């Protein structure tokens, strides 16, 4: 292929092709840019604050001025992020999986044709609106009537989890459905031939065969939940603390970044640098999750090829 290219491309065309190559390499520049930006200020941050305190400290109380009066322990923010991650999976995984099984094994083409675009719309709703929905509907009209006004804070992790759970539902549903549809129909037919019902085929043949794809979707969804910013900033609150009470106000990594940038933060202050240390933490967590998910998908593709 590249031989043909070398022989037939005119000089002008070679310039164009090199231009196209630059476009492709620009995406690498973006990655380099992200890592460089995060790294420079993260290093700056750890000149003032110790890495040990950052990783083990249980108080996140950024300083207001240029001084070093703040306390920068990331554990409360990790705790909040983990709560939202787990909470949203608890909401999104069962619903997403049931949707995927229904779409892949039960629904007729007409129903599928309506349901799939509907899920795409749900995935496309701006996160700030989902946050509004959590604050104005989920907490006052769903959580408080069930669990009581005095137990459920106005800003609470449960509302944030439900909101983020609805956002990751389409991710889990669509990737899991793809994995289930990739299961060869000969497996289904063999099971039907042995007298299995549609439920048995779904649960004992299709779901186990698609398990790697399903787990990849869950990890990817968790990574999205960890990176979600607006819904948790609006609905889950801005109180960094170590707790597992879902009715309390918490703060996630992302919400902490959003809260900091809303005030005027001067460049060069520890508080400004802390933004990038949080960004780096977030970037690393999501990167590792995405890599694991991609590795699982790669293995799963080989299974039936």
């Amino acid at each position, binding site marked *: 292929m*590249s031989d*043909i*290219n070398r022989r*037939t*491309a*005119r000089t002008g*065309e070679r310039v164009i*092709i090199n231009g*196209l*190559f630059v*476009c*492709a390499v*620009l*995406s*690498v520049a*973006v*990655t380099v*840019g*992200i890592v460089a*930006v*995060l790294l*420079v200020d993260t290093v700056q941050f750890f000149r003032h604050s110790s890495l040990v305190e950052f990783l083990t400290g249980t108080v996140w109380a950024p300083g207001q001025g240029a001084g070093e009066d703040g306390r920068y322990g990331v554990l409360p923010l990790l705790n909040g992020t983990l709560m939202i991650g787990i909470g949203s999976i608890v909401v999104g995984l069962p619903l997403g999986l*049931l949707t995927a*099984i*229904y*779409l892949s094994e*039960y629904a007729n083409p007409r129903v599928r044709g309506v*349901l799939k675009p*509907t899920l795409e719309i*749900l995935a*496309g*709703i701006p*996160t*700030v*609106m*989902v*946050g*509004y*929905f959590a*604050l*104005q*509907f989920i907490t006052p009209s769903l959580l408080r009537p069930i669990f009581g006004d005095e137990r459920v804070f106005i800003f609470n992790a449960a509302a944030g989890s439900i909101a983020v759970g*609805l956002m990751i539902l*389409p991710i889990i*549903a669509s990737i899991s459905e793809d994995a289930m549809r990739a299961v060869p129909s000969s497996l289904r037919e063999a099971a039907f031939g042995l007298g299995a*019902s549609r*439920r048995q085929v779904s649960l004992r043949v299709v779901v186990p065969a698609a398990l790697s794809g399903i787990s990849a979707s869950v990890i990817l969804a968790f990574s999205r939940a960890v*990176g979600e*910013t*607006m819904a948790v*900033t*609006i609905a889950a609150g801005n109180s960094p603390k170590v707790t597992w009470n879902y009715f309390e106000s918490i703060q996630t990594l*992302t919400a902490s*970044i*959003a809260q900091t940038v809303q005030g005027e933060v001067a460049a060069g202050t520890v508080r400004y640098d802390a*933004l990038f240390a949080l*960004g780096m933490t*977030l*970037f690393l967590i*999501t990167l590792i999750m995405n890599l694991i998910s991609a590795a699982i998908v790669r293995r799963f593709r080989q299974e039936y090829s």
Partner: protein
Amino acid sequence: MTALSTEALAPSRLRRGATRTGARILLDTAFSALLFVGTIVGVIALATLIWTIIDDGWARLAGDPVAFLSSYVSRLPARAGIRAALVGSAWLMVLTALFCFPVGVGAAVYLEEFAPRNRVTTFVEANIANLAGVPSVVYGLLGLGIFARFLRMGPSLLAGALTLAVMSLPVIIVAARESIRAVPDGIRLGAYALGATRWQTVRRQVLPAALPGTLTGTILALSRAIGETAPLLVIGLPIVIFTLPNDVRDPVSALPLLIFDWTSRPQPAFAEAAAAASIVLLALLLAMNAVAIFLRNRYTIRW
């Protein structure tokens, strides 16, 4: 067919089999009901979300739509409007498209048509896949560190559009690659047979055929970008602003930012305004999606 002989041999066993069949049918029915309910919950949630927003915001929007669309923000919720945010979002969308469409299509064409199968290509592809998973707030930090601070653009239209463009790039590359891949090889081979060079083939045959799919993907990526709040919040685009941009270096606001600001205020009247602004944003996104679906259905060539 063995029912008779089985009955003769072991009637008790058959009866147990019969109750198991009954239980199985019950379980099967219960399971399909559970699946249907689980699926419908997502749909109900979406409907409730949209209904809540329309119910909360309709009165505010329909009361005096012209004033709401053409007024600047205000301390008084009754007087507040979305003019600067709406114009800002429109400009952001246009500039974002201008930046990321050529680069995205260029990268896709290179990777699909010209890239040799080597380590560099594999690395670039893996890199694009990873970029698609980076949280939007991290793109905001990139914009803040590089565009706003290092390149001294400040919280401007240019910095905002570049940040959104960088964020949308991986999505557009993936969409463009898919539609380029869908063009059958026969088209390329036919062009080569007529003496066309590889670039002539790409320029005159592959790109026109792949254009509808690419445009559809681009519009969907832009509709995602236009609903984003976090990156714009991080680079520091203003919410309270009483001018429209004359230059790319001017500050702008954006609809999602305004919705976020109004949602965060305690007064119920601001929540109504936030819902009203959300209706406008939803209408905008719906229009963009309709255009994308129209393009896909009307112009996509089926081979």
